[in-house]
């Protein structure tokens, strides 16, 4: 199925998809070799959005890299902030006050809602459901972005977390506003599920397409919703229990087929679990300081050492590896981007499928090129 018929090699057609193709979620290029409509080979080409993030970070102070992490996965800046703050806190042994931990969980779960809602809109757009689902998803995303703006000052480039806490406390009425958004969100999810989940055309298009086996997911270090759609029970919120996640009761949804439809459904289910966490966190959030009083914006020099801090980002395991030599700049700074590592199996998912399916499979992987290329 995956190799061309003997004697027909010269009839293969090599086409270049991207980097400016709207379905590639940014500037991503694929060299696709086709036998008729079927994909025979697929070579991803990336680096168009490379911004030298990791090398720049070696010449910045530890705090100076925080706004750059916003720009990794620019849809979910708050989880990127958390991943980096967690790594530095581990390196320097800083503790985080209770209220800041709650604020981190709240903002991170809101980010997860936002990312999954946007992704589902984009995925349906890739399948040809032009406009409508994306507009519905973006209508809800806008409410969460408003929350972020009134808390952090920016809609997308939040730069909110600091080593040992968060930058500012919630403004008056913010928590009530957040509670209202969380209370209204299930209604949107119900509608969004009714819209296309049982649609026969969508099921025909996605079921059994782009299957990622559990074994391949494990051997290629796939993480996040993509791994869980293949039935791999691996959620760092449960495995590591970083922050205060062990306090909340939530379940980890798992798929069984690993096809596009499972990856589509798993995001709906994860959003429902995120809402559960949000409800608990917004109910229990205590008063108190939001940042460790010892933490100062200037003159931060952790002791020599190294550490790897990781969180469950909306796209998968987001990790930061840092080496400190005792100077104000990290000696080595490395990001483990979930988008890039989830993208490595793209060829395996696409082989033997039609070229139109490549677009949908890529959409279901959930990449953001800011994070793939860094």
């Amino acid at each position, binding site marked *: 199925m995956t190799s061309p018929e003997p004697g027909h090699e010269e009839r293969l057609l090599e086409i270049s998809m991207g980097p400016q193709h709207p379905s590639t979620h940014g500037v991503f290029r694929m060299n696709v070799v086709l036998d008729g409509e079927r994909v025979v080979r697929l070579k991803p080409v990336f680096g168009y959005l490379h911004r030298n993030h990791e090398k720049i970070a070696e010449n910045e102070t530890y705090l100076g890299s925080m706004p750059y992490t916003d720009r990794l996965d620019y849809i979910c800046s708050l989880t990127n902030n958390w991943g980096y703050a967690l790594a530095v806190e581990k390196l320097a042994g800083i503790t985080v006050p209770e209220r800041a931990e709650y604020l981190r969980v709240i903002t991170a779960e809101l980010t997860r809602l936002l990312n999954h809602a946007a992704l589902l809109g984009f995925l349906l757009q890739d399948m040809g459901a032009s406009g409508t689902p994306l507009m519905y998803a973006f209508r809800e995303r806008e409410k969460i972005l*408003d929350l972020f703006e009134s808390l952090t*000052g920016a809609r997308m480039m939040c730069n909110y977390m600091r080593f040992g806490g968060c930058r500012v406390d919630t403004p008056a009425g913010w928590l009530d506003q957040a509670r209202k958004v969380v209370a209204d969100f299930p209604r949107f999810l119900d509608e969004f599920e*009714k*819209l*296309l989940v049982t649609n*026969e055309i969508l099921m025909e298009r996605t079921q059994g397409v782009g299957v990622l086996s559990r074994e391949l997911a494990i051997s290629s270090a796939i993480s996040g919703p993509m791994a869980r759609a293949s039935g791999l029970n691996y959620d760092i919120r449960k495995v590591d229990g970083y922050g205060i996640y062990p306090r909340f009761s939530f379940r980890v949804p798992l798929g069984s087929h690993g096809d596009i439809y499972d990856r589509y459904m798993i995001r709906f289910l994860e959003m429902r679990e995120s809402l559960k966490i949000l409800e608990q966190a917004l109910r229990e959030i205590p008063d108190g300081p939001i940042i460790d009083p010892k933490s100062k914006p200037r003159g931060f020099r952790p002791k020599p050492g190294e550490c790897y801090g990781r969180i469950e980002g909306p796209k998968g395991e987001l990790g930061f590896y840092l080496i400190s030599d005792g100077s104000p700049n990290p000696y080595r700074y490395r990001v483990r981007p979930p988008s890039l590592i989830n993208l490595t199996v793209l060829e395996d998912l696409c082989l033997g499928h039609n070229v139109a399916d490549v677009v949908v499979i890529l959409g279901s992987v959930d990449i953001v090129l800011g994070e793939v290329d860094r």
Partner: protein
Amino acid sequence: MIGDGILKGLAETARNFFGSYVSKERLTTVQYPEEKLPQIESSRNFPFLVYDGAEWDAGMRCVACQICEKECPPKCIFIEKSKDKKPDAVGKPQFYPARFDIDISVCMSCQICVEVCPFDAIKMDVQFDLPTDDRFGGLMLDRHKLAKSNEYYHEIHPTEASAVDAALDAERAKAAAAKAAAAAPKPAASAATGTAAPPQPPAASTPKASEGEAK
């Protein structure tokens, strides 16, 4: 029955379409240039320099310590320190920026300059319509363009500005008390420590209390 799912989805689209005529929830579009959403208070855009009193030049809080220039992650701030001194917001004679430029084509609105500023001199603006046909000079804001009054700061970020004013007032009171203490009991000590007995601040000490609003 096949086709069920499609019909269900279409019913949902219809509900949203007709709902948009009656419910504000389903029609969230704003016709931008005519109609604008209310400004969110903590929103931020590019930095500006705060000055007290009426004259931007005399009342500028910045003392050209160049901390923001050093800490700015994309290095978009350029400062030249003055040769002479003038009294700052608390009344101490300080340097002032002879040149203070921010290249807003490089600035990434991270507000780290605001966090590290020990003098509450640099704050974030909310003005976002800054188009220009000169991409180099037009986006390089000098200190005159950056200077905005404390009243303007109160207008855009009322809560934050009141907290800053309260802190500054406390500092001024402390400085005044220290001066009084130094002057009254031990005139000899005061003469020994302070050749720099500060001259009276001209316009710096405009008291704006409202400490109740401070967080």
